[in-house]
């Protein structure tokens, strides 16, 4: 009895200690998320209050697949994710490996790569907006000066708008990836390279059979977090293109925002948010399963 009482007291003290955070999480995150699940089965205009909520069953979920905006948003988003993640991960690995060697002014270069990551996305977008100007932007001026007569119209072209945004996003994310990679590289024991040298491995072999396997937990981490955040891309789209020209750069997070706050369709927006959540969840689950095949924890 006395022991039980002690246990109980201990538990209560423990709960009280996490209570401030737990209550905050419950009130500000968990309950709203649950509420959004309920809303996703309704038609609801936020303005008219909860009394005017109307249940419509699965209608919102079914409508998604006949909605050109949603379909294009999904397509664009998938394209964005595949291209930016694969390019960003490989380019930053390359940069990290170079920086890991004794390079002159390494700290400055590392800081330079990290700059965009800590800069405000609004400021970055505004600058790239000017860079991408089809006629007078520095980028196209440069392309024309090296003999390309019809440089891409970038944001003013359905074909090039999404690639333009991808390029900017890759550049913006490099610094973070590089820093995480560098930390991973530091953790690889020197002995492994020495052993490889003795076995007569060249640098490609060392990269392929030592560096990448030893770095696989880092790559896995960057892959998962990168994919999740790439499905939430919003800032650059909202500032640079608003989903245009036509529907060339619309992405899911942007369309959710439009539906909820421009067309007042809270139910539909919530349904798309849940679709996005389930989609990311499945993708992450698959990766989690797949990691057994290629990620090495020492």
């Amino acid at each position, binding site marked *: 009895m006395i022991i039980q009482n002690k246990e109980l007291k201990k538990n209560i*003290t423990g709960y*009280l*200690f996490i*209570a*401030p955070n737990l*209550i905050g999480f419950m009130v500000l995150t968990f309950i709203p998320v649950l509420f959004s699940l309920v809303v996703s089965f309704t038609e609801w*205009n*936020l*303005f*008219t209050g909860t009394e005017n909520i109307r249940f419509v069953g699965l209608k919102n979920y079914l409508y998604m697949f006949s909605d050109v905006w949603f379909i294009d948003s999904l397509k664009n988003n998938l394209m964005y994710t595949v291209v930016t993640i694969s390019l960003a991960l490989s380019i930053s690995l390359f940069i990290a490996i170079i920086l890991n060697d004794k390079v002159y002014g390494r700290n400055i270069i590392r800081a330079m790569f990290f700059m965009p990551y800590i800069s405000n996305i609004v400021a970055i977008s505004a600058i790239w*907006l000017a860079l*991408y*100007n*089809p*006629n007078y*932007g520095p980028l196209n001026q440069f392309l024309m000066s090296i003999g390309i007569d019809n440089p891409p*119209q*970038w*944001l*003013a*072209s*359905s074909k090039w708008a999404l690639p333009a945004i991808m390029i900017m996003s890759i550049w913006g994310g490099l610094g973070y990836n590089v820093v995480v990679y560098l930390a991973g590289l530091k953790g690889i024991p020197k002995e492994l390279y020495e052993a490889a040298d003795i076995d007569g491995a060249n640098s490609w072999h060392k990269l392929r059979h030592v560096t990448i396997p030893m770095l696989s937990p880092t790559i896995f981490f960057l892959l998962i977090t990168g994919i999740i955040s790439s499905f939430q891309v919003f800032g650059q789209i*909202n500032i640079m293109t*608003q989903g*245009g*020209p*036509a*529907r060339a750069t619309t992405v899911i997070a942007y369309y959710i925002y*439009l539906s909820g*706050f*421009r*067309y*007042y369709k809270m139910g539909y927006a919530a349904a798309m948010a849940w679709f996005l959540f389930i989609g990311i969840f499945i993708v992450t689950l698959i990766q989690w399963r797949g990691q057994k095949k290629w990620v090495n924890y020492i």
Partner: protein
Amino acid sequence: MKKILKWLSLILILSVLLTAVFACSKTDNNTDEQTSTQSEGGDSGNEQESSKKEPIKLIVWGGVPAENGPQELVDAWNKAHPDIQVEYVRFVNDDTGNTKLDTALLAGEQIDAYFSYSVPNMTKRIEGGMAEDLSSYGVDDFVKDNIGEEGVFKYKGKLFSIPTTKEPAYMMINKSAFEEAGIEVPTEWTIDEFREIAKKLTKNVNGKIRYGAYNAPDVARMVLEDNYWYKNEGSESNFDDPSFKLSVQLYYDMMYTDNSTFPYSEVLARKLQAYPQDVFLNQEVAMMVSSPWMLRYVNNTAEYPHEWITTFAPLPVPEKGKDYYNTGSLNNWIMMNSKSQYKQETWEFMKYWATEGAATYLLKAGKIPAWKNADPEVVAKGILGDNAEKLFDVDAFKRVALDPNIKYVVDTVTVAAPEIQQILKEELDKLYLKEQTVDQYIENVKKRADEAIKNAAQ
């Protein structure tokens, strides 16, 4: 000792939690009170009388920068009405700014009155329940007496808004460009003449092309009656009407055959859709279909220093001597938030803005008041500013912009209007970027608009 410490920490945590909970419940009470006064609606006047010492605070959202007149208007009102203090908040009247207003309305922020600048936006807000039906405040008589009935937008026969300005469309012209080319500024011209002149005015100035025109007039709007998007009271879209094709073909041909209009890619890249004044004032174009609100930028010589005179011509028409609609409209509709706690006071303020307020203080924002009693001389003087003779052709302005014979259309059918507006925007993007042909454009717009109408009817 240890035990005491433990208890102390427990008490501390509990008290923190309690205050947090208490604070939450307190705000809940507040909102309850608010909703209860809301449900009382017009009767809430009694309650306010008892608390007379506390002035009521109204918040009004509009698209005109505060320093261009609204602040003075509000200051004048506040001085005359110490018990009703108004605060003006500016939102930028583009897509993002309008969404900001919508979000604030949705979130229940205090906004008592707000402005809408397009029929689709207005419709959306009315249908979303964000606008008060003004019938019970005597709006019908007010509008009839002070503004007139022509061109006044009604939603299903009811007034949810008061138009406060007239925004006629006309051609705004850089006079020196015409003089250089030896062309006289027309007082009447056809579309074909406009096209020829635009070609002649396009030339290379200091290594940069100065285009003849920024854009082309919307022929369909000039030719067709009210509700030009729809057939049969809104059961079908009207985009297969030949005038729509004429409209886009004109702009398209001028852009890609004549190379005489400003490139659309540049419009997108520089986000000029809502505020294109830079292009005209930096002499990147010689003329622009425009409305008086833009004159506040012409007047702003600190930000846009220029030496030449801005003059005006009526819009070019398909055939001379015939009557056409102006593509502008009555505009700047002030609306009341249906959740305002101070409806009667808001209504009083709306009336003031729509009459003397706008006619006195908003002229320098380039707003021609919709108020019947506004004196055209005062209006011209107010809009063109102190430097009028140096910057403008005053006579041309009076003749073109203050023409009492301007006819406006007013759309009464609004089925799926926000959706159709979005469809037009997308398809026009593709057309003017040369990613589809004019025929494909017409076909797509017609098909998609019909679908949107069908969905809205369900």
